[in-house]
């Protein structure tokens, strides 16, 4: 059975914005799935509809076979949601927030307390249980939302940018935590703007842009479609007035570094040779942008070209 199955999902907001223009998506049970896409693509809208926070305009959604239109309670009980924006009561304590959420799912207090202790400990929040939520740091708030989303032990956990604004150490520990619960059988869908995150966690990704699914596959399949990569070279020697090197496109940067676009399937040895012939020594090299961002930029450019 699919954890999530979406057919022809459309959303038009009352202000006229067409956020989703007919989406089909299947997420298999046990999968760790990434929903990617640039800002405003429609990710949060899709998640909002799945989690009953946004009314859909057309289409079907079913969660573990529970259709939103015919078995809403069944679908809701199967989903845990970590939303993009903080949405808990600022004046309640960590433990109250988690216990109240358990109550809304009909979980008796005694059982809710056991689970709250377990998840808050696993997420490093147990010491903070009596702290009022507005006094938590951003990263703690994110983890609180994860604990809250798990309190009814959902079969599908949906996280909308769970690691936004979280430092690298906590991010890594969140990844380990998510991998662990995924291994224990919970299907996971997450959105992220970090390629590394999708790459290291997710088996399958879908890319959404302007309300349509434009790519679907594994992360490596996706990156394969990028036909060039941009590197920034820190060099000794002047970068202005360099002779062009065939096959590469170079730009001198104001900070004295050199930016080079390298086509896919092209090595970089020849570039280094050509540079040293011109008296430029390469000291270090890095990827210019997050490759995912680069991918999104290509996507936008492609669409603009198609439209023209």
């Amino acid at each position, binding site marked *: 059975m699919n954890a999530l199955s979406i057919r022809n999902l459309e959303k038009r907001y009352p202000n006229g914005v067409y956020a989703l223009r007919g989406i089909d998506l299947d997420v298999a049970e046990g999968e760790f799935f990434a929903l990617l896409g640039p800002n405003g693509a429609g990710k949060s809208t899709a998640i909002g509809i799945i989690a009953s926070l946004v009314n859909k305009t057309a289409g079907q959604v079913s969660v573990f076979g529970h259709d939103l239109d015919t078995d809403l309670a069944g679908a809701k009980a199967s989903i845990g949601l970590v939303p993009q924006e903080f949405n808990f009561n600022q004046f309640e304590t960590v433990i109250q927030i988690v216990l*109240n959420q358990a109550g809304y799912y*009909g979980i008796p207090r005694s059982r809710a307390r056991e689970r709250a202790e377990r998840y808050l400990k696993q997420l490093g929040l147990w010491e903070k249980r009596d702290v009022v939520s507005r006094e938590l740091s951003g990263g703690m708030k994110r983890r609180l939302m994860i604990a809250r989303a798990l309190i009814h032990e959902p079969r599908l956990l949906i996280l909308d940018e769970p690691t936004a604004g979280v430092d690298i150490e906590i991010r890594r520990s969140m990844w380990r935590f998510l991998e662990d619960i995924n291994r224990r059988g919970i299907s996971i869908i997450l959105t992220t703007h970090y390629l590394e995150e999708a790459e290291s966690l997710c088996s399958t990704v879908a890319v959404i842009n302007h309300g349509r699914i434009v790519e679907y596959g594994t992360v490596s399949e996706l990156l394969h479609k990028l036909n060039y990569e941009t590197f920034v070279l820190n060099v000794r020697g002047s970068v202005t007035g360099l002779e062009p090197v065939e096959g590469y496109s170079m730009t001198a940067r104001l900070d004295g570094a050199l930016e080079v676009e390298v086509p896919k399937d092209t090595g970089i040895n020849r570039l280094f040779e050509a540079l040293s012939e011109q008296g430029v020594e390469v000291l270090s090299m890095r990827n210019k942008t997050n490759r995912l961002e680069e991918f999104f930029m290509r996507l936008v450019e492609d669409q603009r070209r198609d439209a023209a």
Partner: protein
Amino acid sequence: MAYGDSAIPTTWWRNWVAFQTILIKEVHRFARIWVQTILPSAITTGLYLLIFGNLIGDRIGVMDGFTYMDYIVPGIIMLSIITNSYGNVVSSFYGTKFQRHIEELLIAPVPNWLILAGYVCGGVARGLTVGVLVTIVAAVFTDLELAHPLLVVLIAILTATVFAIGGFINAIYAKSFDDISIVPTFVLTPLTYLGGVFYSISLLAPFWQGASLLNPILYMVNAFRYGFLGVSDIPVAVAFALIVVFIVGLGGWALHLLNRGTGIKS
């Protein structure tokens, strides 16, 4: 381990736990900020009773056969029940929307009628808490007697329910903090003051007597006063019927708005 399955309770039981959770949370909220929620009414009623009842009341003499103090006490209790039950729900539910933790309820399998019931009962709880406190304050000024105690309790609960639902509807439509004070200031307060809290409408000219009969709060105040003193400007049964009609009408409206997601879901 099959996640979820072991934890699915029967619908009835699940709803009961969810209802308790909302209600307890609501009571915690107004108890935590009691200086804003409970105390003001006790102080204002104390002042009303001191000034109108004690100082001026002696010069007014009797009304419907009672000292002025005794005459106004039931209306003043009712006044605080009305403002507090309304005020509790309108600010709490608006805050829930504004801070977005309404989403905690929307994602969970809580039926809409239960959300409404939870918040309304929270409002009724505050209305009654303040009502009891004000009654105690009033007892300091005069000897209270209850002609029909059961009626007093019943009218208090039902009236609090009407206004708690009213506050809920107000909160659904409210888009800013200003919107949650408009109705209390420009509708509820005038209607309450003109609803026979401080006078018997028999003192009014016939036209204004007729106009007063269009004011629903008049019926509630008078039925409540009947419970205390055994006198009323209107038949108590009419008041009952009216209150029930209001509960059903406003309750249906609130539920309809929730089902449509007005002001909550886009």
